[in-house]
């Protein structure tokens, strides 16, 4: 075993109502690629925040290269040789790559020298970057490169990566892994946070598994099956959702050459999208974030108007209909952003039902709101979808991610849609809630509704969808049946415009 670089012992951190990390021990050796594995909510983020100096542990000790290590802030962690690439990038859209990197450094060299350094380092590690491009115009994969280069320019001994592949195409994942292997060979240790079992088995030497804040075991991923890893993560046998055979009915939705301009400077235009969905079918649309998912949902929900004929539902041209009108035709949707888009953070669940149910359930008469009926409906949703909350008067922001998502999806499902479009239905949601949501979607299809599921989680799509297509820079690929679809085929479908060549 290589010499220990970082050692955590008995580290504990509690917040009101939840113990995020409970007596956790961790050992990372020099040059190791060490995985930190666990489902959403297991405590991985909190642990690395402590290593990076963003959060202070309540108790326990940390040791870096044999010395006690307790960084008061990220700057101290960086000085000690610890760098971190977050899941949500800290980037400044309107500034250039070089400026972004300069902001992430303690004492950056002069602009010109920095630009030269960026070019050199980025090429050495196979992640080419133009220092003068505006960050807002880069793809998600390129933006991650900026974050990585920013870290590498400080010659870190430990590089922490939080869910790095969630925004990458399969090709980009390969490039990243090549880079990580190079770094590891050069002596940089990597702490790799993920819940993607196949990847961890591909690249990591060792793994520490967290569950509900506790360290539940170590293993060598290469010697452990995915199934065993999953069971260690979740703690019980996995149950895949039940897929009953479904009757497929007539065509319900036609998207005919749906095209829309980009909504803003950093948005994506939709280009000539064609799609057919039948009753009882579930169509999956994959693709890395930033390729038009939000824009497609907005076109389907009615938030953005397209030409009337580009969206035809049961024979009616609804492309230019506003959301309310579409809901009365029983076309419903659930956007990606829970707080701020699908629900209002400061409003109660009762008020939040009004957002998408105004046309039905007797809640509106002559413009006046029937509050008791709204409350009744909210309580129905809470009951049917096992939403854990003190009551319907709780504000949306007081719910956990999983529970709010169950509420949001439940609100749409209980209105018996004929067509339901969801964007990232289980993003950031704990495993139990995610399984419940996927089951609800399957049940809805079984009852005859047509579904479009837009998701970055390929496993999810392959699990519940009948057909699969990929959104790439606003264009939709042809849809293929999910049965028999292989990962490299998917990779090719996702490749499109931003496929990059891996260096030899």
């Amino acid at each position, binding site marked *: 075993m290589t010499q220990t670089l970082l050692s955590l012992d008995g580290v504990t951190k509690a917040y009101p109502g939840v113990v995020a990390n409970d007596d956790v021990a961790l050992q990372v050796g020099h040059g190791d690629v060490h995985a930190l594995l666990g489902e959403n909510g297991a405590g991985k983020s909190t642990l690395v925040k402590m290593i990076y100096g963003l959060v202070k542990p309540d108790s326990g000790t940390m040791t870096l290269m044999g010395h006690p290590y307790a960084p008061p802030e990220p700057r101290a962690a960086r000085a000690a040789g610890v760098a971190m690439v977050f899941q949500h990038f800290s980037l400044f859209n309107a500034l250039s790559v070089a400026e972004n990197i300069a902001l992430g450094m303690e004492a950056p060299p002069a602009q010109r020298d920095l630009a030269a350094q960026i070019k050199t380092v980025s090429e050495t590690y196979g992640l080419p970057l133009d220092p003068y491009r505006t960050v807002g115009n880069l793809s998600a994969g390129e933006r991650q490169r900026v974050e990585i280069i920013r870290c590498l320019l400080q010659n870190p001994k430990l590089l922490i990566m939080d869910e790095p592949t969630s925004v990458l195409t399969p090709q980009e994942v390969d490039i990243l892994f090549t880079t990580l292997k190079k770094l590891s060979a050069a002596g940089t240790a990597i702490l790799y946070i993920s819940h993607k079992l196949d990847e961890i088995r591909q690249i990591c030497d060792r793994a520490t598994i967290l569950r509900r804040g506790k360290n539940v075991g170590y293993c060598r991923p290469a010697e452990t099956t995915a199934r065993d890893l999953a069971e260690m993560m979740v703690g019980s046998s996995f149950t895949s959702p039940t897929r009953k055979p479904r009757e497929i009915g007539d065509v319900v939705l036609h998207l005919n050459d749906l095209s829309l301009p980009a909504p803003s400077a950093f948005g994506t235009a939709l280009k000539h999208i064609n799609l057919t969905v039948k009753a009882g079918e579930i169509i999956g649309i994959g693709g890395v974030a930033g390729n038009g998912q939000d824009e497609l949902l907005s076109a389907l929900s009615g938030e953005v108007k397209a030409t009337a004929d580009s969206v035809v539902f049961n024979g009616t041209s609804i492309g230019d209909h*506003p*959301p309310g009108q579409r809901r009365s035709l029983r076309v419903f949707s659930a*956007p990606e952003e829970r707080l701020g888009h699908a629900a209002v953070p400061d409003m109660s669940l009762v008020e939040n039902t009004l957002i998408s149910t105004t046309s039905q359930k007797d809640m509106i008469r002559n413009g006046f709101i029937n509050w008791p009926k709204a409350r009744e409906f909210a309580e129905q949703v809470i009951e049917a979808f096992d939403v854990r909350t003190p009551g319907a008067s709780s504000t949306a922001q007081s719910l956990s991610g999983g529970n709010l998502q169950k509420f949001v999806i439940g609100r749409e499902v209980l209105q018996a849609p004929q067509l339901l479009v969801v964007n990232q239905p289980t993003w950031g949601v704990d495993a139990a809630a995610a399984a419940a949501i996927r089951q609800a979607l399957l049940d809805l299809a079984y009852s005859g509704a047509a579904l479009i599921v837009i998701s970055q989680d390929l496993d999810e799509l392959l699990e519940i969808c009948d057909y699969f297509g990929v959104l790439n820079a606003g264009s939709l690929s042809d849809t293929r049946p999910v049965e028999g679809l292989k990962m490299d085929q998917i990779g090719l479908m996702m490749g499109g415009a931003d496929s990059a060549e891996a260096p030899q």
Partner: protein
Amino acid sequence: MIRLEKRLHPSRALTSLTPILAVILTMIIGGVMFALLGKPPLESIRIIFWDPLFNPQFAAYSRPQLLVKAAPLILIAIGLSIGFRAGIWNIGAEGQYIMGAICGAGMGLAFYPADLFIIFPLMVITGAFGGWAWAMIPALLKTRFGTNEILVSLMLVYVAESLLASVSSGVLKNPDGMGFPGSRNLQQYPAAANSELIANTGMHWGVVACFIAVIFAYVVLTRHLQGFHIRLTGQAPRAARFAGVNPHRVTILCLGVSGALAGMAGLFEVAGPAGQITIDFNTGYGFTAIIVAFLGRLHPLGIVLAGLLMALTYIGGELAQLMLGLPGASIQLFQGMLLFFLLATDVFTHYRVRFGEA
């Protein structure tokens, strides 16, 4: 180390208590300010807040004045609060107030000296229309071009003031006024006068309109879909679009309503307590109404209380000027401080104070 932690529910209790806290803090700091000016602090506070209501020497005169001063403030503030809830900042209510007065007075004077019962209602409608039209300028510029309504509505205040000066010496000048600028006095033209309905209470038609507006606003905001949409637009614009709210319609509705109400307030004032169109007819009600709206927590009933409180500071301030020689500007400062303290104490409604390390 002191930290602020967001509450999961805004605290109901504190939402009602913070305005009171703000008033008390203002009284304390105000007292200090008066002491620095060489005026006895406790007496000053008493003269401003207590005497106008209860002192037997003045109360009979000043109590009716309370409604007179409060009515335009409340009327304008109700309109403003609807817009503020939607995130639409109509800062130019003063200009809409002036335009309402000009248009309404103009309509009334056009009929002079006829005595028809229809004149006054027509004036009210024209006044509302004048304010509405003036507010439509920022509304249309915002919906069509995305221009910021704060600056446009504010610039229009200065334009309205210039127009006021112009018509006082021009179009609306009193032909029997011996060359002095200013219109005919509407109080002396019975068909057009906004006279007191119940003697010695200060209650004129403006007060009636004010009560109607309050009730209407309350019902719409709490029970009507449009009110819900307005609140939605202010709290979560993306969710509002998701719900199918048309943001342009909300903009036009909010600016239109606040403009109309401000215009009506202007008309009631010019046909009532002020009496005539003059160059300095406007006294800043449009700006004070902003304070009233915030102090009342953008809630119709809160606005009534806040309006009465503000009116009290105006009247008490005049009294203090008379009795203690307190400069008039100190009341303006007082009112500004009230807003500041309210904004400061507001933090406790949404956040909890925590001590200790992160």
